[in-house]
């Protein structure tokens, strides 16, 4: 990992998404502008009064701006607590943003939480990490998959709804007859297929996938990843893929955003992130991944841990772990800017060409 941004060949220049080809980029499907989400984690009122404590806010997501274009897969990676799952929940409307604007196909998604957001809700769906917790154990698989069809009144005829559920199940590699069964009769990988079938039931354009394969064994993970790629090609889906597994992200994503303590520190197309990572944190993450080709080799892991998000470091939050930090990094928060080697990076050292 010694690739210097300055010495890069032009072939690694940004080819951001399928949109860049015709010169003028079409409007993005999903557009986040300075989105933030704070959680109030204060002690109860009486304790605050007695112990003279103030309110405490956890800045889970703190000013995030990015776009997702139709047909592409954007992956967000980062360690636990970096805010990637919060972004997923903000986009589908499970949380309301504290600040900023999220648009889907030009519409403000704050209506998602209201009755008026129903048509919008149909167009974006979510797949969760834990296939054991996200399926109702008392419902048959047929009812689970048919629920979005019924909720959005996509098909009126009762028999036709069940036919459609069977069709969806066979689409994700299960049998139509599995409609009669209950979730406990399926393995983890099969359950995740059921979750995907349910997400597809409302004919969405956009799927938010929050660690969809993290709970699965590698061979099952390969099956689910292959299925997701096939479905994307057939149904022209757009994915936001959240994961902490860089190898999985490398396999599935077109563009990658790297998050650290509620902010995106680097956002670039896949080849730039994996071939010529620029931000010191991205480099550290990539260095830390155990690789099959590393047999017997030893390396020096980066010291330190992710700081407590309740009390983040000043300036660039990565500065206590960063080998390139200087005084400016300790005081001034770096903004996401166009990087010399393509993509966007939030780092003073890169801006000043110190690294």
């Amino acid at each position, binding site marked *: 990992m010694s690739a210097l941004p300055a010495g890069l060949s032009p072939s690694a220049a940004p080819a951001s998404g399928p949109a860049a080809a015709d010169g003028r980029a079409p409007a993005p499907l999903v557009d986040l502008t300075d989105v933030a989400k704070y959680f109030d984690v204060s002690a109860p009122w009486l304790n605050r009064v007695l112990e003279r404590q103030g309110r405490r806010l956890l800045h889970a997501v703190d000013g995030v701006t990015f776009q997702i274009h139709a047909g592409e897969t954007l992956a967000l990676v980062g360690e636990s607590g970096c805010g990637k799952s919060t972004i997923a929940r903000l986009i589908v409307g499970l949380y309301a943003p504290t600040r900023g604007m999220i648009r889907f196909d030009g519409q403000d998604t704050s209506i998602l939480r209201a009755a008026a957001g129903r048509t919008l809700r149909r167009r974006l769906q979510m797949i969760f990490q834990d296939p054991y917790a996200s399926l109702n154990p008392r419902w048959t698989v047929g009812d689970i998959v048919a629920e979005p069809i019924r909720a959005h009144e996509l098909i009126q005829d009762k028999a036709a709804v069940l036919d459609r559920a069977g069709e969806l199940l066979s689409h994700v590699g299960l049998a139509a007859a599995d409609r009669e069964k209950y979730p406990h009769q399926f393995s983890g990988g099969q359950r995740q297929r059921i979750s995907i079938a349910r997400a597809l039931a409302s004919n969405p354009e956009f799927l938010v996938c929050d660690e969809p394969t993290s709970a699965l064994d590698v*061979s099952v993970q390969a099956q689910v*990843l292959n299925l997701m790629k096939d479905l994307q090609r057939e149904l022209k889906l757009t994915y936001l893929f959240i994961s902490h597994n860089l190898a999985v992200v490398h396999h599935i994503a077109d563009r990658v955003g790297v998050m650290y303590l509620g902010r995106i520190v680097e956002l670039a197309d896949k080849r730039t992130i994996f071939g010529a990572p620029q931000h010191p944190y991205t480099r550290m993450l990539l260095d830390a991944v155990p*690789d099959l080709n590393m047999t017997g080799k030893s390396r020096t892991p980066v010291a330190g841990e992710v700081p407590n998000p309740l009390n983040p470091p000043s300036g660039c939050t990565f500065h206590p772990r960063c080998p390139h930090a200087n005084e400016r990094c300790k005081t001034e928060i770096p903004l996401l800017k166009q990087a010399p080697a393509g993509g966007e990076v939030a780092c003073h050292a890169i801006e000043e060409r110190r690294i």
Partner: protein
Amino acid sequence: MAQTTPGGAPLLEVRNLKVEFPTRRGTLVAVDDVSFAIAPGEVLGVVGESGAGKSLTGAAIIGLLEPPGRIAAGQVLLEGARIDNLPPEAMRKIRGRKIGAIFQDPLTSLNPLYSVGRQLIETMQTHLDISAGAAKQRAIELLQSTGIQAAQQRIEHYPHQFSGGMRQRVVIALALAAEPKLIIADEPTTALDVSIQAQIIALLKKLCREHRTAVMLVTHDMGVIAETADRVAVMYAGRIVEIGPVADVIHRPEHPYTVGLMGSIPSLVTETERLAQIDGAMPRLNAIPAGCAFNPRCTRVFERCRSERPNLIPVNTTQAACWLHAR
């Protein structure tokens, strides 16, 4: 049929181990005829999907099988002496003293009511002839060697005051406290973030090299095995299907299951449109097919695989339980 290990007499030898669970609907065999050996100072990786029997093999060795699970056949030998038939009291003396354990979730291995120092000192005093003062001094040194800053003060802290990565360091210190000959590490880095995972692996490797401690590293993460282990055993449906030097098993796998497993791991370096995929799923314990347990999913299956169960056969530098290599 013991295997030869590089470097003389094995420290741990497992012979034809069988673990079963009697249930009302019949007996389930979770670990079936598993044999392997670990040499002093060697790291043996054990990989497999959930339910393959890798954790149960580890639990059987340290005598921590949850009833009704039981060792139905086979032997476990530590330094040449059987330990699988010892009374619970004698086994308790071996655990901690000769065999240390590291589990996935560090919170469950630490007592929340005692400071980490007290837990370390207690472990040492139980197993070693050591004074309280000397034990405290050694506890501080151990915490320091695992990379915990200000160990002098941290020794007074309770588990909840440590972060996940720091807790796993305490667990490693605890496992090494009585200088065991063997450590059984069951998914020691699975609950940790990648950057912390790399630190813990490097630490485990360094400490075991220094103390010449052998490690049985149970994990589903092939990358961790690749970096840490000397040899690797691949388990499927309760049996070892392939065992050999780690680089050979990863780069030149001989068993079709290992081939599929390696192909299904996404790479950080090469780009592929589709991952190799093994169709189907591992059979449940009550429905293990006749012959080779992998035969319904195997692309190279032939008649013999459906009727006769293969044992490990030497193939080049590894051993694989596959009839393809018997011809």
